Structures are given as structure tokens and as C-alpha cells.
């Protein structure tokens, strides 16, 4: 596993999480936080940042220790590593951003069971060198945060008439309360998935797309 890294590999691992293997829109992982804490853009961003810290930290640790961790107990050890990062984030958020921490409530602690994080450890970090594992984690984190932010922005604008807490739409706008309630999360995610599926399909039908794919 110490063979020299092939050129472009780092960039590829970094970029795949943004779109090609986006954890929410393509892999449909981590949907619980994507529904639960995206009722405002602020919440989505804080959740994204907290998840990013946990994912990057855990991937680095798991990758660095991948030869020392016995195969039979690897999942337990991943969970211990992940839970340590999550609990630390929980305390630090409560100390530094008490308002956001109150809003996100139990969902910070629930990052432990976010399947994106354990998934990346098992599928990638445990088999690759630390540099690649971090690239993979950073890409996945950005992809996850972007997806959450899109859902959060749509829901906050429609459901509250505001963005990042600032009033965006005037008094004429009757907030669409269902959008900040749980059903709004499903509706928004469904609509976004449909939109992206349509984009993808259109890109595939484009002449020349077949050759590009083969080249890639």
C-alpha cells in the first residue's frame, strides 16, 4: 500500500464526493440528518461543518491506524473513534455556538450513526493512505454540506420567507409552514433528486457523452 500515488488520484478522490458520488444525491446515504436539520440554512451549514470535522478526523485516524487495527474488531474501533470525535464536537458546539447547538439538539450526537461516516471508513479510509483518505473525506464532506445547504435554503425561503435568518420575502408572503415541518424535508429532497436525475439523463443523451464516459 506504499506504492507511489498515481498522478491525479488525489484530485479525483477529492472531487468524486462533490457530484459523481455525492453522499446525499447519488448514494442516498445520511438521509436522516438531511431531513431532520435542514429547516434552515444555518442549521444545514452547522450540521455540515460538524459532520465534516468528524468525517475528516475519523478518516485520518482510521487510515493512519489501518495496519494496527485487527480485522475482527475493526467496526467497534471505528465506532469508538467516530464517537470520540462526535462527543468532542458536541461539547465544543455547546461552548462556542450555544444557539446552534440548541437548535440541532440530539442530531449532533446522532452523527455517530451517520452511515456516510462509517461507510467511508470501511469502504475507503481503511484501505488507503492518509492523504487519500483525507481527500476522500474532504470531498464527501463538501458534497454532504452542499446537499444539506441546498435543501436547507429551499426550505427556509419557502417555509419562513428568510435566508440565514434574515427576512428575504416581505409581509405579503405567507410562510409555507409545511416546508419547515418534516414533510417539507421529503418534498424538497424528492424535488431536488428529480431535478438532478433529469440533469444527468440529459447529459447522458447529449451526443458525444458516450465517448467522454469511455475516456474517463
Amino acid at each position, binding site marked *: 500500500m506504499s506504492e507511489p500515488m498515481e498522478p491525479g488520484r488525489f484530485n479525483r478522490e477529492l472531487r468524486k464526493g462533490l457530484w459523481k458520488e455525492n453522499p446525499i444525491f447519488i448514494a442516498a446515504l445520511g438521509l436522516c440528518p438531511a431531513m431532520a436539520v435542514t*429547516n434552515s440554512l444555518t442549521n444545514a451549514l452547522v450540521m455540515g461543518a460538524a459532520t465534516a470535522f468528524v468525517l475528516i478526523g475519523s478518516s485520518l485516524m482510521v487510515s493512519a491506524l*489501518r*495496519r*494496527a*487495527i*485487527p*480485522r*475482527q*474488531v*475493526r467496526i*467497534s*474501533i471505528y465506532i*469508538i*473513534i467516530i*464517537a*470520540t470525535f462526535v*462527543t*468532542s464536537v458536541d*461539547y*465544543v458546539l*455547546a*461552548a*462556542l455556538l*450555544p444557539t446552534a447547538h*440548541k437548535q440541532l*439538539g440530539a442530531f449532533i450526537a446522532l452523527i455517530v450513526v451517520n452511515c456516510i461516516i462509517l461507510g467511508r471508513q470501511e469502504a475507503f479510509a*481503511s*484501505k488507503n493512505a492518509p492523504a487519500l483518505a483525507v481527500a476522500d473525506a474532504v470531498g464527501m464532506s463538501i458534497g454532504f454540506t452542499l446537499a444539506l445547504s441546498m435543501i436547507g435554503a429551499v426550505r427556509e425561503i419557502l*417555509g419562513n420567507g428568510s435566508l440565514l435568518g434574515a427576512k428575504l420575502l416581505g409581509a405579503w408572503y405567507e*410562510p409555507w*409552514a*409545511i416546508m*419547515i*415541518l418534516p414533510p417539507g424535508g421529503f418534498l424538497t429532497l424528492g424535488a431536488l433528486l428529480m431535478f438532478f436525475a433529469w440533469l444527468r439523463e440529459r447529459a447522458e443523451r447529449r451526443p458525444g457523452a458516450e465517448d467522454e464516459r469511455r475516456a474517463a
Partner: protein
Amino acid sequence: MADGEASSVRLVASLGVAGLLSGVILVGVYLGTLPAIERNRAEAMTSAVYRVLPGTTRIETFEVRDGEPVRYEGPEGTLPKGEAVFAGYGEDGHLVGFAIPAEGSGFMDTIKLVYGYEPTDRKIVGMEVLDSRETPGLGDKIVSDPEFHANFDALATEPRIVPVKKGKKTAPNEVDCITGATISSEAVVRILNDSTGRWRPIVDRMLASGGASK
């Protein structure tokens, strides 16, 4: 990844070391963030106390021990471990009233609030919800709805507070509920009734014995 079958000793040792390291790190983080977390909690409570007791310039914290308030002697900017009440004093040192934290079940989860109690007229002079998980867009209006909060600017607590439909408030002890959030509004009233019922005699005793004077 380690190859082959690792011995059970090695498995147990790996898990033990991982758990031990994790524990040490968490204790460190906990101790490191605890002062800031407690400060945030105390600040949130103190600023709410000033808001629910209009005209207050100085507050005094009381610790509740065996149901009786005792002056809290802890360091500045901290709250007692257990239950606490606050006495608010005005510019000239007169007693404005007491800020009393209370909680009870709402529609979804426990509602935690703090209200200002003016003991001479036995009325509530302010109320603020500290923590709630009511339905967003409906029940959570108990936190921010200005019309609902206006009910608590001068609310008689005797014989008891009565929730009425929005716009039907005629008596000083009635509260206009929020349309679409009747259960949450009524929960707030119930919490206030329970708490004032419990505290009215204690506050009366405190005043009679001069326990709350400067």
C-alpha cells in the same frame, strides 16, 4: 489492515486501548469546555431574568434547598446546581419581583420557561420560553409571538390563570391563546398555574420574614 487471525488477547487489548484513549480525550474536552458551557447557561438565564422583570437593574440568585429559597453564595456568573429563583431589584434598590423558572410537558416535549412574578399584586409581569420542542410554525409561536407574550405583561394569577380563545380576553387573569397552537398555549398556562400555586406562599413567607430585602 492486519492479516490473518489475531489472538484474542490482541483483540481485547486493541479495544481496551481504543476505549482508554477515547475516555482520556473526552474527559479533557469535557473539562475544557465545561466553564464556557456553564457560562452560556448562566448568561442565557440571567438575560432572560432581566427581560421578564422589567425595570430590574440588579439581580440576586436564590438556591432552592428543601423547597425553601436560600441566598446563593457561589461565584459571580454561575448558577446553583439545582433549582434556582432570582430576585430583581430596581434602580433605588426596591424589590421589582421574582423571576421563577418552571417547566412542564407541552405538546411534544418539556417546555422550560421563566416568568417574572410581582408579589404585591400577585401578578406575572413577563414570561420567556427557554427551551421547547413544539411544532415549528405552530406551537413554537409560544416562544416568539408578540401578541401571545403581551398576555404576560400584567397577568393576574388569582384565583388562577384561564386560557381563552384568541381575542376573547376580558379579565386580567385570562390569556389569549395562539390560533393553531392551543395545546402549547394551554401548556404554558398550566405550567404557570402550577408554579405560581407552589411559589405564592413561599414568596409571601419570604417577604414577611424580610428574606428578600437587600
